[in-house]
Structures are given as structure tokens and as C-alpha cells.
């Protein structure tokens, strides 16, 4: 199979920029799925062809010269060594070509910066998504709707990608390009993205949208799109952001406007479960845990980063109620009972959380990659004082890649994963950390 592909690859390379082949083999920029991305694609093709034509001229002259003006042909070298006329010509012509290229490029840049419709009227943005980069996951907040969630590489890619996993990555669907919770947006809607970061610089890039923008701590960058076709579009973080830079994919699911409205209603919990959520619940149940919890709801807008702690609390509460819904509990009366999690439940959830959030650095067996990523096995952190352990997971360790997970994960997840690490890898502390313990620290 490999051999066959190789032959095809060669054939395709010889066709160079054939647009027909590009869709299948990924030779060229995609045309993309918005008017803007098509504009970028056209500009790319224009400058590419200009380069090809100039290249044919330059290389043609060069090869002719190599062929004709060689000593072995007995030619006498000419004596000329300058000509003001041709020098002016080959300075002026490139200037004219560059001006011709600069015009559409200027238009394109203005369209990215302050979009206008065909009538030249400013385009109004119909919704806003805040994108926050973390090492190494994305968070999407729907500012108009008031909820948000984390988006992380799926567990099957995450396990397969480990060195020596023994898993053939060709058997993993969308290897490294799949996430647990994709960003969901409506089609044919002007969507503004506000990009920022909570740690280092990341860059949010979906090739099909025709642009990327850096997510920079302390800054809010803007981008926008209007996707014409519903579908699933994939991208990756484009700015080196540390060890797992290659493992924070972006998946955008574009739904029709009605499907999107149903999805939003479901996120807010005031309608019957729609297809997406049903799938999530099913898959969560199938894997013996509740993935849907990651679809944390949140009731406040997150424009102000200073409210982070507060938001985390909201997430926690929302997460708890989600948990109840998932278990088919109709109302909030059993809230108190639910807050006491059994060891089995904590361990099952903890393993799930560990494998998506912690495994990348601390490895599947807890051995880590010392000294940068410490081993958890027999570590004082995982075996001694539990309060110190909670503190580290919730607040992170400054100056290292250990992130403050209190801002990112619901209290249940943090409690579960702490319990898991204290009772795995040969540890038998028997400690059960409850969500309430975490909430106490968060407040």
C-alpha cells in the first residue's frame, strides 16, 4: 500500500500545483469554506503563477546560457560587463509586477481587518467566541450564550501518540486532529473570534478558514469568519508552545443555523437533549464515565480575566448539575448525597481525566520525564500531605509547565484525578478527595 501511494505521490508532484489533485493529496492551500478564504486562495494562486512564469523566464535563460555559452562549444567570451538600459528595465519591471500584486493584497488585508460586504458596507458580527489557549488545550467561551468548555486531544490519539505505545497510528481516526469537545458554530453567520492565552503564546489556525492569529497572554486578538458549508474543519496550534505543541488540535463543527440553535439550547439545559449531546452521553456511558461533564456550562460571560476564579466556581456548580442530569436525577434534592463520591467512581473518573490531562507529561504509568516533568511514583506530593497535593493541582507550579488546573477543570475532575494518582502507580494511600474539598480551596 505504501508503495502504491508513493507512486501516486510522485505522479502528483510532477503535476505540481494541479488543483484537482490537491484536494486529495494536500499539495496546495485549500480553497477553504468562506468567501475570505477563497479570496486568500486566489491571491496565493495569482502570486504562485506569477512566480512560476518569472521562474520559467529566469531558469530558461539560465539553462539556455548553460547549454549554448560553454567553453566546450568553442565560444569566445563576450566583453560586455554592464548596460544601463537593461539594468533599468529589469529594475522597473519587477516594481510594476509588485505594484500589481500589492493591490489585491491590500484589499485582502483590509477585508481581514475590517470586513465589508459586497456593497462596501461594514459587516456586523453576529456572534462572538472567545478562544483561550492553554498548554496544551483550547477553551471556547460563547460570550453571547454564556457557556464555554475545554477542547482537548481525544484519548485514543493521546494514548497512541505516546512513544512505544505499540498502536499503529494509521488505525486511529483523525490521528492528532480530533478533540473531545469541538467548537460548534453556525453556518452563514458572521462570527468574531477573540483570541487570548493563559500561559504562553499559541496560534489558532484552521486552514479552511484562510487565516491564523496568535493567542497571546495579556492581549486579545481578533479574527472573523463566515463559513458557508456545514461540516467538520480541523486545524492545529501553529505557534510553538512547549512540549505538546503538536498535540493541541482544533476541530470546528459547523452546523446549520437551526441545528446550532438546538445545540445551544441543549448546552443551556433548557431543551430536550439533541443529537450531539445524546452522542456524548452515550459515548460517556460506554466508556464508563461522563465525558459530557467536560462540556462544562457556565453562566457568566468571561470577558474579564479577573473573574477567573469566580468563573471556575460557576463551572463547578454547572458541572455538578450536569452530572445529575446525566444520571437521570430529576432535581437538585440529592445534591448533598451526590457530593460524596465513592472510591470506585473517583478512580474511574480520575483515570479518564489523568489520561487526557496529565499523561502527556507524567506518562501513563506516572513515571514522568524527570527532571522537567517529575515522576509521581512514590513522590512526596502524591503520597504525603493531601492538602499540598490539592494546592499544586489547583494552583499549578510557577515557572514550570504544571498548569493551574483550578481554572480549567471542574472540581469533580480535580478531586478524581488527585484520588486516582494517590491510589495508582503502586500507591495505596486510600485517600478519597471529594469535590467539596476542591471547592473549598477554590474559594
Amino acid at each position, binding site marked *: 500500500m505504501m508503495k502504491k501511494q508513493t507512486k501516486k505521490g510522485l505522479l502528483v508532484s510532477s503535476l505540481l500545483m494541479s488543483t484537482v489533485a490537491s484536494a486529495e493529496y494536500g499539495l496546495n492551500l485549500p480553497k477553504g469554506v468562506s468567501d475570505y478564504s477563497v479570496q*486568500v486562495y486566489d491571491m496565493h494562486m495569482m502570486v504562485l503563477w506569477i512566480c512560476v512564469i518569472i521562474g520559467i523566464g529566469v531558469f530558461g535563460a539560465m539553462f539556455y546560457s548553460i547549454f549554448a555559452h560553454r567553453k566546450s562549444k568553442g565560444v569566445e567570451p563576450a566583453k560586455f560587463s554592464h548596460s544601463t538600459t537593461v539594468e533599468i528595465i529589469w529594475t522597473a519591471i519587477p516594481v510594476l509586477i509588485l505594484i500589481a500584486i500589492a493591490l489585491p493584497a491590500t484589499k485582502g488585508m483590509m477585508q481581514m481587518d475590517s470586513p465589508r460586504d459586497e456593497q462596501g458596507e461594514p459587516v456586523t458580527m453576529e456572534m462572538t467566541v472567545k478562544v483561550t489557549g492553554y498548554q496544551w488545550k483550547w477553551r471556547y467561551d460563547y460570550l453571547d450564550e454564556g457557556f464555554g468548555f475545554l477542547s482537548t486531544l481525544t484519548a485514543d490519539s493521546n494514548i497512541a501518540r505516546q512513544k512505544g505505545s505499540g498502536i499503529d497510528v494509521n488505525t486511529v481516526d483523525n490521528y492528532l486532529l480530533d478533540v473531545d469537545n469541538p467548537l460548534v458554530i453556525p453556518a452563514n453567520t458572521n462570527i468574531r473570534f477573540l483570541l487570548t492565552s493563559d500561559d504562553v503564546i499559541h496560534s489558532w489556525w484552521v486552514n479552511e478558514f484562510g487565516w491564523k492569529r496568535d493567542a*497571546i497572554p495579556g492581549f486579545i486578538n481578533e479574527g472573523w469568519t463566515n463559513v458557508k458549508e456545514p461540516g467538520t474543519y480541523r486545524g492545529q496550534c501553529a505557534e510553538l508552545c512547549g512540549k505538546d505543541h503538536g498535540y493541541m488540535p482544533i476541530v470546528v463543527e459547523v452546523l446549520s443555523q437551526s441545528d446550532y440553535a438546538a445545540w445551544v439550547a441543549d448546552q443551556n439545559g433548557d431543551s430536550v437533549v439533541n443529537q450531539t449531546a445524546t452522542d456524548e452521553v452515550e459515548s460517556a456511558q460506554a466508556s464508563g464515565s461522563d465525558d459530557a461533564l467536560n462540556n462544562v456550562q457556565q453562566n457568566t460571560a468571561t470577558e474579564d480575566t479577573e473573574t477567573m476564579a469566580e468563573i471556575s466556581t460557576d463551572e463547578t456548580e454547572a458541572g455538578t448539575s450536569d452530572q445529575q442530569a446525566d444520571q437521570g436525577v430529576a432535581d437538585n434534592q440529592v445534591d448533598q448525597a451526590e457530593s460524596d463520591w465513592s472510591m470506585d467512581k473517583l478512580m474511574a473518573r480520575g483515570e479518564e481525566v489523568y489520561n487526557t490531562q496529565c499523561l502527556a507529561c507524567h506518562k501513563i504509568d506516572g513515571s514522568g520525564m524527570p527532571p522537567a516533568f517529575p515522576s509521581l511514583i512514590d513522590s512526596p506530593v502524591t503520597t504525603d500531605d493531601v492538602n499540598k497535593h490539592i494546592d499544586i493541582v489547583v494552583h499549578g507550579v510557577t515557572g514550570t509547565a504544571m498548569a493551574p488546573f483550578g481554572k480549567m477543570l471542574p472540581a469533580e475532575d480535580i478531586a478524581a484525578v488527585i484520588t486516582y494518582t494517590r491510589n495508582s502507580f503502586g500507591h495505596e494511600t486510600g485517600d478519597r478527595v471529594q469535590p467539596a474539598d476542591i471547592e473549598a480551596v477554590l474559594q
Partner: protein
Amino acid sequence: MSHDITHDELSHDHDHKPKGFVNRWLLTTNHKDIGTLYLIFALTMFIIGGTMAMVIRLELFQPGLQFVEPFFFNQMTTMHALFMIFGAVMPAFVGLANWMVPMMIGAPDMALPRLNNFSFWLLPFAFVVLASTFFMPGGAPAGGWTMYPPLVLQGGQNVAFLVFAVHLMGISSILGAINIIATIVNMRAPNVGYLNMPMFVWTWLITAFLLILVMPVLAGAVTMLLTDRYFGTSFFNAAGGGDPVMFQHIFWFFGHPEVYIMILPSFGIVSEIIPTFARKRLFGYVSMVYATAAIAFLSFIVWAHHMFSVGMPLGGQLYFMYATMLIAVPTGVKVFNWLATMWRGAMTFETPMLFSIAFVALFSVGGFSGVMMALAPVDLQYHDTYFIVAHFHYVLVPGSIFAIIAAAYYWLPKWTGHMYDERLGKIHFWWSAISVNVLFFPQHFLGLAGMPRRIPDYSTQFAEFNMWSSIGGFAFGLAQIFFVYIVIKTVRGGQKATAQVWDDAQGLEWTVPSPAPHHTFDEYKPVDLSKMAHGDTH
């Protein structure tokens, strides 16, 4: 000391070489010996940096992680760049300048010989400091050679070592540049005017000014990193009122001239070689000088084209786009001039000429992708992908490195007194020229199709071209080991070279015997201007 340097009977016994290894090499103030040291050092760093590249291509040979952990992979990409840029390409050019600039302008030595020794010996220490980070807790720097905060500040103890190593390299470069400027300005033979100087000397003069202007900027940037990391300042820390994007502006104010520092001397080299083997004067000598100066000037006002994605105001993006596009004009003039030099010449294709022609062709490929990414809206697609990786490797490998290799073949007979093996040289050329394209051309496709740079593993759709690229990489790496063999063979023996070496070579270096005696041009007297390698200046 006043013997006739063109005297054929000048023997090694009379040329005042210091006795003993320490005196000859460690304490040397001789421009040729220091040039040799620089070149050996650069070749060593090239092999080490190349080995890191092999690790990178090995891991990327197929999807999935097979050989190294992601964190080590990032150390490899970071250190590969630092070793190649500061260890291989820049010292190789300084080595060539040391050897050739005094001989090309009829000077007895560099203007500041002891400084010359110092600026070389800083380098091995700088790289020992840098390489020592591999053995530290937390490993080597892994935040990319661009050292963007806040990421680079996560790098444990290596931050201090990285910063001090960069300081040492910067001091070395600045001192070297001062020396080259002082030599060219003050030490030319009495009748050699600026417009009599060979292009290699001109390009180095301009490069040296770039170095002096930008290396202190880099030193400032990394010093701010140091204080941010260890002394609680917040230059680049948003939480403390700082600005992480400011680092990028400062870095690229250094970084963009830096890329011309790595290419202008190459322009000089091929401007020496192509006329020799075309048996014709360099076309448009004066416009070459102006074009070089124009490129150098433009290099200072285009830095933020590396940063279109950070979110600059529209006006800023448009300005940097237009200024960047302008660079195509003087660069185009250079390429056209080389073509016109070849045009209606009587060319032969010895190894230096082959590498020079490949330089012109493949540097142009890198130039084309450069024009493409000058367009800000499209650059938002190309940025930080393998398209960029392909672009800058096209201008650096078949660009700078090919020019350095061409220079080595061209001047090896002058340095060693032996001709290299032409058959092996041609094998080395074809092997390198084909494999370098297999290595880097597919990376254009990878980038356009959506593969970001600096990732240790990739989605299976990118497998095909990565495999090709890796195969090309291994072949190219082996070819350079072969080059080392050819060089060693030439140093040890081979057909005796004449003083002229190449039939129609112009330049004062060909008026002294091969190998060049320890001291050349040690009398202050006019030289024969008809031997100078400049073009027609009328």
C-alpha cells in the same frame, strides 16, 4: 620581513610560522590561521547541527513517536537552529573573510590581529556553554531559536546558559565585524579604491555594518529575558504590565538583518566564482554594490513581516508588507546580473561553478516563496507552517551553505596548495543538489496542506511527503560527510596547485603562491589593479 611575496622559491622555512601547536594555533594572530580555525570550527558545528537535523528527520520519517520524546524533539529543533546559524554559517563566513579579505585588498593581515584571536576563541566557549545545557536538569533550550517569551522562560536552568552563550556569540560577532570594517577601511593597498574592491569584500563590508548594528539589539533582548527570569522584571510578562510581543519586535529587528548577514557574503562569493568560470567580467558591478547596500538598508525596516499573525494595526501590516515586497527588486537585480555574467560567456563547470549556479537557481526558489509570504493576507496561511520551513531552508542550505561549499572548493587550492579531486567534487555536487531538493521541496506541499512547523508528530495525511523529505535529508547529510572526506583528502595531498589555480580567475589572491605563504602583501605598495576581481566601473 620585506621579501618578494610573489617569489616562487619562497619556502615554508622562511615564512615565520610560529613554532609549536600552542603558539601556532592558540595564540595565533595570523589572519590565515585564524581563518582556518574559524572554518574548522564551522565545519564541526555544521556536523553537530546536522546530526540534530538527522534526529529531527528520523522522528518525522513516519507518523507516531518512534525515537525521541516531544520535549527532546523541541530541544533538537532549537539547538539545530542555534548551532547552524551561530556556529556554522556565521563563523564560516568570518573564516572566509579572515582568509580572503586581506589577500583580496592587498593587506598584510587583519587590522586588529589580537582582537581577531579573541573573537575566534570566544566561540568554542560559547558553544560549550550552550551545549552543556543538554546535561542539565530540564535539558537544553526547547522554546525555539527565536526564544519567544513566555515559553522560553519555562526552560529551567538553561535560560541563563542560553543567554550567556548568545552574549558570547554576539561579542564574538561584533568584534569580528569591527575588525573586518577596520581592515577594509584602513588596510587596502594604496591604489585600491572602494570601487576596485572585489564583490566579496564589498558584501562583507556591508554585512559587518549589519552585525555591529544588530548584535547589540539581540544582546539587549536576551538580557531582558534574563532579568525577567531571575530578577523579577516584567519586560515581557503581561501579568506584570509587560509585553510579550515587544520581544518579538526587538528580536526580529535583530533577526531580519541577521538573515541577510547569512546571505550577503554568499552573494559576494558567487559574484567571485561565476565570472571566473564564465571567463567574463561580473556584469553590473556597481549595481551589485548598490543592490547589496539597498538590501542591507531594507533589512532594517521590514522586521515585523515575521509577525503578521500577532495582530498589528492594519497600517502597520500594510507598511511591512510593502517594504518587504521592495526587497525583491534589488535581489532580482542581483540574480539578473549573475545571469548576464553567464550570458555569452565561455563557461566551464568545475565544482565551485556548479555549486554557484545551483545557488542562483535554488536561492531564487527561496526568493519566490519569499515574495509569496510578503503578502500579509496570504502569509496568515503560510506563517508557522512547513511552507516557511521550506522557504528559509531554501535560502540557507542551497543558499548560504552551497555558497560556502563553493567557496571552499574555489579557494581550497589556494589554502592547501593542492587541487581537490574534481571527480569527487562533482559527485558531491550532484548528490547534494538532488537530495537537497528531495529534502526541502515537499515541505512546501506539507505547509500548504496544513502541517505546522516544530511538531514532533503529525496526522497521517502528511506521512507521504515527510517520508520523502526524510529520505532526502539522510542523503543530504551523508553527502556532507563525503564533503568532509574530500576536504581532508585535499589537505593531505593531491595535484599541486599553481598560483593562478583557475585559468581566468581575477583577484589579488591568485597573485600569491599556492598554498598562500604565512605572510602576504607585507609591504605597503600599489597593486596591479588589472588583477582586481571587480567588473567594469565605467
